[in-house]
C-alpha cells in the first residue's frame, strides 16, 4: 500500500502487545483485589447488609380512639396531619423537575421561604428527607396533590402522616378527660384510665423482593383504637362549668388577690346507676394546650421542699400566682403547679366533709336501730365530751329538736347524741359500709386513697366519735360523698360510680357495655325514706325558717340536700384554722322522685368570712335551674313573680311548660309549704335585737361580734363554726400528697 498513509510498524505492533499485557495485568490485579474483598469478608458483609436492610418499611400509625359524651359529642379525637418533605435527590434527577416543583410549592404553601429551600437543595443535593412543614391538615395536602396532577414534572414532594390529639371543646371537662403526651399515652382522667382501649396497634407497610425477584409491597393495616363513650353529658357539663366559672368571676380578688376559691368543684350523678353526668372544677385548663401557664394565674402557689427523710413536701402557700410571680418561676416550679392544675379535684383531693356527713350518721343510727325516727333531743348550745366542750354552731342552743329538725338546722349537739347512742364500733362499721376510707374505683386515673384518713374503731375516742358525727376529723373525696349519698337517697343501693358506659371499635361495633354495677345495699328502703324526708326539710319550707339549705332550691322544683361548712386545718400550725372553711352542698332532685344527685364543694372561698354555705347553695341553685329542665323533669312547685322573671331572664321561660301544675293553680307562693317542724327557736328574740351591719347585711351581736342572717337568724359562721376549736386534730389526717407516698 503506497497511498501516502504510513504503516503500522512491527515495533508499534509489539508496543501494542506490551500495552495489552499491562492492561491484562491490571485486570489480574483487580481480580486479585476482588478475591481479597470476598475472602474472609463474605459472611461479615452479608451480616452488615442484612442489618442495614430496611425493606423500605413504613409504620402506619394507628388512630387513637375518640372520647365522646353520652349524646355522642366528641370530647377528644385524633386528627391525621401531614409532614411535608422533599426528596432532593429525586428533584435533582432531571433539570425539568426543579422549577415546576418550586413554583407549585410556593403557590400552595406561601409560608415557605423558597430562598431557604433552594439553598438547602443546592447544598444537600442528595438529601432524601428534607422536612419542610409539619402538621398540615388534609385539605392542604390535597391542594398540593391537585396542583401536582397538572404537571408531571412536579417531583420529589412527599407527605408522611401522623395523628395529633384534638379536644374540640378545649377546656370543657378537662379534669375528666385528661390529655395525651406527645408520644400518645394518656395523662390524667379518661385518657390515662382508658389508655389501653384508646390506643390502637400501629400497622406496617414494607417492600420486599419475592422468589421471582419481583418487587412486592405488603401492608399490615393499623388497627385503630376504641372509642370510649362517657356518661358525661356535654350540656350538663357545660352548665356546671359555666356556673363554676361565674362563681370565680364573682368572687375572685374579693378578699385577697387570687381565684374565687382555692377550688370549686361539682359532681352530678345519676342516682339510680352511679353514672356521672358531669364532673368539673375550677380552675380548668385548655386540653389542647395543657402547658399553658396562663391557667395558673390566680391559683395559690405550691412550693416543694425536701423534708428530713428526703420526701418532697408540698406546701400550698397563701400567695396567689400573678403574672410577675409566674415570670420568675423556674420550669420545675411551673410543672409542680401545673400538676396541681391538671389534678381532678373531685377524686384526687381529700378534705373534711363537715355537716354533709350528718345524713350518713343519722342513717347509720337508724339502720342500727339505736334511735327511732320519732325521738327528740335537746340542744342547749354545746355538749361536754371527754373533757371538751363541743359547741353547736348556735351558741344559744336549738332547743328540742327531732331528727328532721336536727338535719334541717344542722345541729351538732343532736348528732353527737346520736353518735353516742351508736358507739364507736358501730359508727366505724357504718363508715366502712358507706365506703369511707375505701376507693370507689371510679374509672378515672388518680383517685386518692383515704384509708388512713379515717378513724378505725380501735383508735376512736369519744371526742373523735363526737366530731366525726358531724363530719369533722376525717377526710373524704367528693366522689365518695356523692356516691354514698346517692345510695342513701335511692333506697340504699350503692352503685360503683362510673364515667364510661360503652366502648366501641372504630367501626362503631360495641366491644364492651359497662352496665351499672350494684355493689351493696348500705341502708334499708325505710331508712332511705327517712333520709329523703330529712334532707328535703333542709331545703323545703317544712324545715322551718332556720333550715340551712333553702337558698339551694331552684325555681319551680322541690329538692333535698344537706349543707356543709367544714373547718380546715392550718398546715402551718397543724391546728384548726380560724378563718379557712370548705363549704358545700350535697343534694338530690327532684325531692319526690330523686333522679340526680349534685354535690358542690367550695374549698376556701375568697371572702373575709368563708363559713357560709351560701357560696355552695348558690351554685347548686344556678346549676339545677338549668339542668332539671334539660333533663325534662317536670316542675312541681309554684313559681313566684320574681322566679318567673328570673327564668325569663335566663331564657328558660319555656320550662314553665314542664310544670304540670302551673296553669291550674292559683295559690300564691308563700305559706304553701307546710311547716312540719314548729320547734320554738329560743334564740329568736335575742338575734332580732341586733343591729344590721350595712357592710355585710348581717345582724351583728355587739358583744361577741358574731353575725346572724338578717332574716333567719342563722349564725353565718356556719353550722360548725368554732364548734370544735378545742378538740385535738386527728393526727391521722395529713396532707394528701404525703399520704400517697406512704404504704
Amino acid at each position, binding site marked *: 500500500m503506497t497511498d501516502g498513509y504510513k504503516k503500522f510498524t512491527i515495533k*508499534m505492533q509489539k508496543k501494542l502487545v506490551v500495552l495489552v499485557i499491562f492492561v491484562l495485568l491490571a485486570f489480574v490485579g483487580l481480580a486479585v483485589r476482588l478475591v481479597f474483598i470476598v475472602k474472609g469478608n463474605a459472611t461479615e458483609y452479608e451480616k452488615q447488609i442484612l442489618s442495614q436492610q430496611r425493606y423500605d418499611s413504613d409504620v402506619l400509625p394507628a388512630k387513637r380512639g375518640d372520647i365522646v359524651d353520652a349524646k355522642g359529642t366528641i370530647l377528644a379525637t385524633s386528627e391525621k396531619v401531614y409532614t411535608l418533605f422533599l426528596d432532593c435527590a429525586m428533584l435533582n434527577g432531571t433539570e425539568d423537575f426543579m422549577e415546576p416543583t418550586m413554583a407549585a410549592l410556593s403557590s400552595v404553601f406561601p409560608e415557605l421561604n423558597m430562598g431557604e429551600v433552594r439553598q438547602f437543595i443546592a447544598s444537600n443535593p442528595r438529601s432524601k428527607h428534607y422536612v419542610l412543614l409539619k402538621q398540615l391538615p388534609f385539605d392542604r395536602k390535597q391542594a398540593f396533590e391537585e396542583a401536582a396532577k397538572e404537571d408531571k414534572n412536579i417531583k420529589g414532594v412527599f407527605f408522611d402522616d401522623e395523628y395529633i390529639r384534638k379536644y374540640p371543646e378545649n377546656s370543657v371537662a378537662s379534669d375528666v378527660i385528661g390529655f395525651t403526651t406527645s408520644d400518645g399515652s394518656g395523662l390524667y382522667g379518661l385518657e390515662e384510665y382508658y389508655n389501653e382501649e384508646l390506643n390502637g396497634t400501629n400497622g406496617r407497610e414494607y417492600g420486599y423482593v419475592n422468589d421471582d425477584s419481583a418487587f412486592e409491597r405488603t401492608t399490615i393495616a393499623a388497627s385503630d383504637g376504641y372509642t370510649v363513650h362517657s356518661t358525661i353529658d356535654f350540656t350538663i357539663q357545660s352548665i356546671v362549668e359555666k356556673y363554676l366559672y361565674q362563681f370565680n368571676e364573682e368572687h375572685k380578688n374579693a378578699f385577697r388577690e387570687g381565684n374565687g376559691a382555692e377550688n370549686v368543684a361539682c359532681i352530678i350523678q345519676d342516682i339510680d346507676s352511679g353514672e356521672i353526668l358531669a364532673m368539673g372544677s375550677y380552675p380548668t385548663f385548655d386540653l389542647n394546650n395543657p402547658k399553658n401557664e396562663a391557667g395558673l394565674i390566680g391559683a395559690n402557689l405550691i412550693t416543694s421542699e425536701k423534708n428530713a427523710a428526703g420526701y418532697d413536701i408540698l406546701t400550698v402557700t397563701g400567695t396567689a400566682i400573678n403574672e410577675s410571680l409566674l415570670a420568675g418561676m423556674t420550669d420545675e416550679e411551673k410543672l409542680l403547679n401545673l400538676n396541681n392544675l391538671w389534678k381532678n379535684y373531685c377524686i384526687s383531693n381529700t378534705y373534711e366533709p363537715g355537716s354533709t356527713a350528718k345524713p350518713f350518721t343519722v342513717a347509720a343510727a337508724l339502720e342500727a336501730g339505736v334511735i327511732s325516727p320519732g325521738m327528740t333531743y335537746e340542744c342547749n348550745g354545746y355538749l361536754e365530751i371527754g373533757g371538751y366542750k363541743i359547741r353547736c354552731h348556735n351558741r344559744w342552743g336549738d332547743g328540742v329538736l327531732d331528727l328532721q329538725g336536727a338535719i334541717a338546722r344542722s345541729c351538732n349537739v343532736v348528732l353527737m347524741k346520736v353518735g353516742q347512742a351508736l358507739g364507736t364500733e358501730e359508727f366505724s362499721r357504718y363508715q366502712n359500709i358507706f365506703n369511707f376510707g375505701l376507693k370507689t374505683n371510679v374509672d378515672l386515673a388518680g383517685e386518692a386513697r383515704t384509708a388512713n384518713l379515717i378513724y378505725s374503731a380501735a383508735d376512736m375516742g369519744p371526742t373523735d366519735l363526737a366530731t366525726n358525727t358531724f363530719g369533722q376529723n376525717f377526710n373524704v373525696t367528693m366522689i365518695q360523698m356523692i356516691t354514698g349519698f346517692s345510695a342513701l337517697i335511692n333506697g340504699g343501693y350503692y352503685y360503683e360510680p362510673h364515667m364510661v358506659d360503652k366502648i366501641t371499635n372504630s367501626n362503631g361495633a360495641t366491644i364492651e357495655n359497662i352496665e351499672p354495677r350494684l355493689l351493696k345495699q348500705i341502708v334499708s328502703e325505710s331508712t332511705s325514706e327517712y333520709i329523703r324526708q330529712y334532707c328535703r326539710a333542709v331545703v323545703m319550707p317544712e324545715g322551718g325558717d332556720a333550715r340551712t339549705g333553702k337558698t339551694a332550691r331552684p325555681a319551680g322544683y322541690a329538692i333535698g340536700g344537706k349543707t356543709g361548712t367544714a373547718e380546715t386545718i392550718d398546715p402551718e400550725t397543724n391546728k384548726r384554722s380560724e378563718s379557712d372553711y370548705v363549704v358545700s352542698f350535697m343534694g338530690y332532685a327532684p325531692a319526690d322522685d330523686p333522679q340526680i344527685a349534685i354535690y358542690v364543694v367550695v374549698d376556701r372561698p375568697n371572702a373575709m368570712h368563708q363559713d357560709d354555705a351560701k357560696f355552695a347553695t348558690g351554685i347548686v341553685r344556678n346549676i339545677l335551674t338549668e339542668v332539671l329542665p334539660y333533663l325534662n323533669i317536670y316542675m312541681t312547685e309554684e313559681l313566684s313573680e320574681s322566679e318567673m322573671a328570673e327564668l325569663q331572664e335566663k331564657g328558660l321561660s319555656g320550662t314553665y311548660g314542664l310544670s304540670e301544675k302551673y296553669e291550674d293553680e292559683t295559690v300564691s307562693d308563700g305559706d304553701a309549704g307546710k311547716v312540719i317542724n314548729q320547734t320554738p327557736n329560743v334564740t329568736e328574740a335575742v338575734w332580732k335585737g341586733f343591729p344590721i351591719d350595712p357592710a355585710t347585711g348581717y345582724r351583728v351581736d355587739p358583744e361577741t361580734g358574731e353575725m346572724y342572717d338578717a332574716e333567719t337568724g342563722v349564725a353565718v359562721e356556719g353550722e360548725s363554726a368554732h364548734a370544735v376549736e378545742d378538740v385535738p386534730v386527728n393526727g391521722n389526717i395529713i396532707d394528701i400528697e404525703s399520704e400517697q407516698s406512704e404504704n
Partner: protein
Amino acid sequence: MSRTSVKSRNFRGIYIDYSFLLVVFFLLGFGLLMVYSASAYEGFNKFNSPTFFLRKQAIAIVIGFLAMVVVYFIPYKLWDKLHMLMPIVSVIFLILIKTPLAKSANGATRWVEIPGIGLQVQVAEVVKLCMILFYATYITKMGNTLNTLKGFFVYITPGAILSGALWILTNNLSSAFIVMAIIMIMYFVASKDYKFTFATLILLSLITALAVFIISKMDGGGNFRFKRIRAWLNPMAYASDTGHQTIQSLYAIGSGGIWGKGLGESMQKLNGLPESQNDMIFSILCEELGLFGAFCLMALFAILIWRMVIIANNTKDLYGAMLVVGVMAHVAVQVIMNIAVVTNTIPNTGVSLPFISYGGSSVLFLLIEMGLVLNVAAKIDVRDEA
C-alpha cells in the same frame, strides 16, 4: 486487478469480524440484564415502573446499533479527511454546555440536548470520540517528530487544552483524565521508544503520591475531591457521607461470595447502594453473580480488547490501527477505572462501565466506536497478510 480480486474485494467489503461483534452483543445483552436487575426497584419507586430504566437503555442500544451500522458502512478514511472538524466539534459542544441547551442531572451539568430530536448527549463522550478520530490523523501527520521532546509537547497540547476545558466546564475530572489517558496510550503505541511515556507516568505518579500524602495529613477542608481522597484512604471514617457509596459497594462485592446470591437477588440495590444501575453496577453484578460472574465479565472485556489488538496489528495502515488503538484504550481505561473505583483501589470518581452501566450517551458513542473498529477490520487487505 483480476475479476476474482474484484470479487474478493467486494467480498471483503462486507467482511465482518464476527467474533468481535459477538462479544459486543454479549456485553450489551449482559448490560441490559444487569441494568434491569439493578434498576427495577428504583424504577418502581420513583417512576412506578420497574422497566423504566430498562426501556430507556434498550432504546439507546437500538439507536446505537443503527449508528454502528451506519458508521460501519462509511469508509474510515473519510474521517481522516475530516480530522480538523473533530476539535471544532468538541469545542462547539463544550461551548453549548454554557447555553440553555445544557441539561443537568444529579446536580451536574454534563449533557447537551440536540435541538429538534430531543436527544441528550454527554459532552465528555463527544470529546472522547472526537479526540480518538483527531489524534489518529495527528499521529500520521507528525510522523517521526513524535519522538522528540518538542514533538511530544506539540502532540499533547491540543488534547490537554480540550481536557482542561472539559474538566473546568463540566466539573468532570474523570472524563478529562480518560481523554488524556487515551491520548497517552495512542502516543505510547505510536512512538518509537518508552522514554516520554514512562517519564510522564513517573511524573504523574510522584505528583499523585505527593498530593495524596498532603491531603491525608490535612484535617479537613478542601473541595469534594479532597474529601473523596480521604474517604478512599479510610472509607469507614466517612461511612455516613463520602465513604458511604464505597463501603456499600464493598459490602455488595463481599457478600456475593464466589457464586453470588443469584440474578436479581441483590439487596444492596434496595436503597443501600446509590447509583446501583450506573457507576456501581459492577458491585451489584458481584453481589448477584459472585466472583464467577465478575471474572466472566472481565474475561469478556479481555477478549474484546484482544480482538481489537488483533485488528490493529493486522491493519498495516497506521491511521486505521491508531483508531482501533484509541477505541481499545477508551474501553480498557474505563473498565479498569470503574472496577478500581468499586473495589476502592482508587478514590471514588464517576466512571461508567462500558456497555454495562446505564447511560444512553455512553452506549451510543461506544457503539459508534465499535462501528469504526468493524469498518477498519473490514478494510484489512488479506492479500498483504498472506
